[in-house]
Structure formats: C-alpha cells, structure tokens
C-alpha cells in the first residue's frame, strides 16, 4: 500500500456540532487528490485535523504509517506535511525572503549560543537557508520581490508566497487550502502549472478547492464532502456523474443531462 496519508474513521465535534463524521481518506504517493464540497462541509476542518491544529474527536490519522493525530502542528510539519491557508496567513511585516526562510526553521538547528557567538556552523547554515529560500522564490516566480515586505505583494503573489514558504519546509505532502481563491483565469492557469511542477518534485498534494476547472484538470482523484460526511471518492468522471454530488451542489428537484464533457441542466 503506497498511501502516504490515511485518515481512519475521522470524527470531529465542536461542542454540540458534528463537523465531521466517519471520514476515511487516503492520499497515495505522487497523487494529487482534490477535496471538494459545498461551503461548510468540513474541508478546512479536515485539513486542520491533518496538520494538527485540531485533534480528532474520534479516529486516527496516519502519515507514512506513523500515527500523527494528537501531535502538535510543528511536529507534524517536521514529519513532512506542509500547508497553505484558506485565509492568507503570511508574516506581513517581514520581507518576502524572510517569510520563506522561516519555512527552513524546522530543518535547521542553530541554537542561541551558536547564534550569539556566530559560529562557523551557524554562518554556513544561515547561508544555506538564504539559498534555499531564493530557490523556492525563483521556482514560483517571486525572486524579484525578495526584499519587498510581504504585505506589499499583490493578492495572487501572496498566495504563491504561502506556497513557497510551505515548500521550504521540505514536505512530502502538501496541503493546499483553496489556493485559487480570488484568482482570475490567467492566475489560475499559472497556479495549475505550479501545482503540476510541485508534483513533479515528488510531493503529493491534497487540494481543497472550489474552482471546478482547476479540480477537474489537475486531480488524479476527487473526494467530496457534504455536511461532514464523505459522499464520493473517485476519478473525475465518477464524480461528475454522481447524483449525490450533484444534489449537494445544486440541490434536488432538477433534472440533469450527462454528456462526455460534463453536466448540463435540463
């Protein structure tokens, strides 16, 4: 079994509200899996559970065979899961380059004494951090913004910066939370390219998205959440013809025609 991520019977309660119920999900090595569903279906909650911001009320999460549910976010990041956020959470008052350099924190070790006494090891580690940050910025086309403060970047570039920062943590699994939100068609095309290139680097991707064009073009597999339950999990044609999925997005009482390229409303 080549699954790097496995969610086993995941449930999450917030007080009296059941946000997720018996969700099972896997991401295979090198796969791009999309997680879709109407707003409020629990997609971001699921991502928060995977990267440790929440703990599951029931069920367990395995990453490369090790249980990660219950670990703190920084420990999970250290294991190799990177993440971007639905609402952009950059470090706005820090330069673009520094934002990405922060991503190297868990892969470096200079402590307070080596920093204060500026040891040779610390200097070469620092050099490596800067190099890697510039590499990731170059990869995402942001290299010329390196000295600019993060808050001065245009919106689309801020989303890319979040990705550069997450890539700097050396993930083997990248969680992308609505990376195309607020992007126009041209920006989305660029994003799609980048996601493909990230996969080519050997990083598996779990992608939460609303943009169906993006989802259908790039995903190997699509899982659908509705009201906290998984209602479908399969390739794009399976999802497109799934009655429950259609009802979840468009409601009942409408008849549909299914043609080769998609769904039309009669």
């Amino acid at each position: 079994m080549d699954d790097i991520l496995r969610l086993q019977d995941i449930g999450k309660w917030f007080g009296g509200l059941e946000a997720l119920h018996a969700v099972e999900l896997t991401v295979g090595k090198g796969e791009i899996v999309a997680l879709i569903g109407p707003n409020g279906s629990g997609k971001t909650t699921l991502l928060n559970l995977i990267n440790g911001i929440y703990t599951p009320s029931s069920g367990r999460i395995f990453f490369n065979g090790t249980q990660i549910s219950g670990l703190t976010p920084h420990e999970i990041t250290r294991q190799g899961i990177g993440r971007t956020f639905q609402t952009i959470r950059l470090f706005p008052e820090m330069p673009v380059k520094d934002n990405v350099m922060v991503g190297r924190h868990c892969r470096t070790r200079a402590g307070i004494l080596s920093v204060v006494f500026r040891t040779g090891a610390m200097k070469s580690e620092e050099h490596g951090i800067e190099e890697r940050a510039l590499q990731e910025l170059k990869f995402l086309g942001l290299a010329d913004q390196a000295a600019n403060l993060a808050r001065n970047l245009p919106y689309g570039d801020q989303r890319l910066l979040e990705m550069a920062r997450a890539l700097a943590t050396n993930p083997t699994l990248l969680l992308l939370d609505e990376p195309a939100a607020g992007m126009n068609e041209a920006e989305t095309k660029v994003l799609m390219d980048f996601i493909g290139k990230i996969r080519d680097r050997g990083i598996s991707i779990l992608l939460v998205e609303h943009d169906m064009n993006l989802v259908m073009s790039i995903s190997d597999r699509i899982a659908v959440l509705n009201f906290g339950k998984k209602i479908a999990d399969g390739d794009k044609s399976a999802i497109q013809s799934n009655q429950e999925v259609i009802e979840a997005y468009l409601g009942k009482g409408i008849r549909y025609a299914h043609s080769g390229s998609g769904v039309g409303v009669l």
Partner: protein
Amino acid sequence: MRANRTWLTIGGVILLILCLLPQMITARYAMHLFNLAGIFAILTLGLNFLWGWTGLLSMATAAFWGIGSYTSALLAVELGISFWLALPAAALFTTLCGVIMGYPILRLRGHYLAMATLGFNIIVVLVIINWDTFTHGGDGITGIPSPAIGSFVFDTDNKFFYLILAALLLLIIAAVRIKHSRLGRALQAIRESEIAAETMGIHTHYLKILAFALSAFYSGVAGSLYAHVTMYISPDIFNFLESARILVMLLIGGSGSIIGAVLGGFILTFLPEALRFMASWYMAVFGAGIIVLIVYMPAGITGLLTNMARRRGREDLVIPI
C-alpha cells in the same frame, strides 16, 4: 546581513563620542544620568525581545531588573563575591526566573498576558519587601561595592560609564545577531501569525520561553550594573510603574528596532531633566505626550524615520538595526 559602510561609520562616530563623554563631563549628576540611560537602554532592549519581536506584552521588566539588582547586591554584600562573578550569576539567576515566570503563562494572549506579568511584578516586589531577613526588606541594601580590577576601582560615575558602555555594546551586537538568525525570524513569525508560525515547524512554546529568557537575561545584567553604580537599592525602585515606563521607552524609540530601544532608553531618561522647568506640569505633559505618540507615531521615532525613508524610495536611509 551586509554591513553598510556609511552606517558603520556613523556608528563608529557615535561610539567615539560616547567613549569621550566621561572625559568631557565633570558634573556628577549629568554623568550619572548617562549611566542610568545606558542601563535603561539595556532594559528596553530586553523588553524588545518580548514585545517588539514576539508580540508578548510583558509588564514585569522592572521585576527582573530588581531580581538582577538584588542577586548581585546580596552576593557582593553578604558573601563578598566580586562584581565580575556577581554580574553573570545575577544574569543567569534572573534568566531562570524569567523561564519560571514564562512557562505557566505561555497560552495567555494580549491583555491577559500583560495582567499576569503585572501580577508577577507586584509579587516580586512584595517578596523583596517582606522577606526582610534575607533581602533587608524596606531598608534596602547599602554599601554595594564598586567593581575593581586589581587596584583600579570603578568608584565614580565617569569610570563606571565604560562598564555600562561595554555591556550595552556587547548586548546590542548579540541582539543584532539574534534578529538576523533563524531564532529572530521565528520570534517575529510568532508575532505576525502564531498559527502560521507553528505550522511552519516552529515550536512556539519553546521560542516564547526563549524570549522570556533573553529578556530576563538583559534585565539581570542591567540590574547588576544598576546595583553597583548606585550602590544602594530598595524594593520600591522596581515597581510595575517602572515596567510601564520601560514599555513607553520602547514605544518612543520604536518597537522592534534595536536602535529604537536604545534611543528610547536615553530619551526617557533625559526628558524629565530637559522638562524640569515645567515642574508640576511635567506629568500632565508626559501623559499627553504618550497619547500623541500612540495616535500619531505608533511605530516610534525609528518607525517614523523608516516610513519616511521608504515613502521616498530611499531604502538606504533606513536604519539597519
């Protein structure tokens, strides 16, 4: 971080002037003010780690200043330990206290954190006053010895200034190195977005404790210097209002900026003297000044200068540390 030649030259000139200061100033009180300014600069630098870089509002700076002072004074007066050992011992003990205060309050935010640290400051002063068999209580500690190297004794403010200057310089360099390291970036990341910082692999609990430790260390050094230059300390000096004053120093100079912290320490030490002519109006003016500062200049003097430079596209005019 590349050291810009012009800024280094400016720094060198300022350093030279400071070195010549004790040779030029004969009025004892004036020299004493410079010593106090240096000590407050160190205290403000310490607070900068917590508030300026990590976003943790601590109202306990004076408490750690007091712990450093009392530790050094008691070691010297009760056990006859030389200043050169008492200072590091005081600094380390104060650091330990900083970790002890920080650990249980890690999850507190904003006002709650401020209140907890305020409480800590009050407790420390009360302990010092009431544990009088150990600390000499409200009487304070007198006769704190001056440092000596062989037969040379630092028994005047003019001589002592060199010690304070040396300490300040070393602590500034340490702060600069920390700021431009993975630790400094991690602390600032926590201020900017704690969730994102944690998600980027930063062990936020550990780093917050580090911030408390650094701040306490600096305060401990300042405390020891203070005890041995004023030669008399008492508990009422280290009250929480002083903590608030140190915060104002950081705000005036520019929170987050190293030079800002030093500047704030100097400005607020000399300001009461410059405004002495106002007599009883001074407090009112001071209070009004703080309000104006917060509303119109929240980034302090260095922040204002940085913004002005950036707006004109002159990144080279931005103070680098």
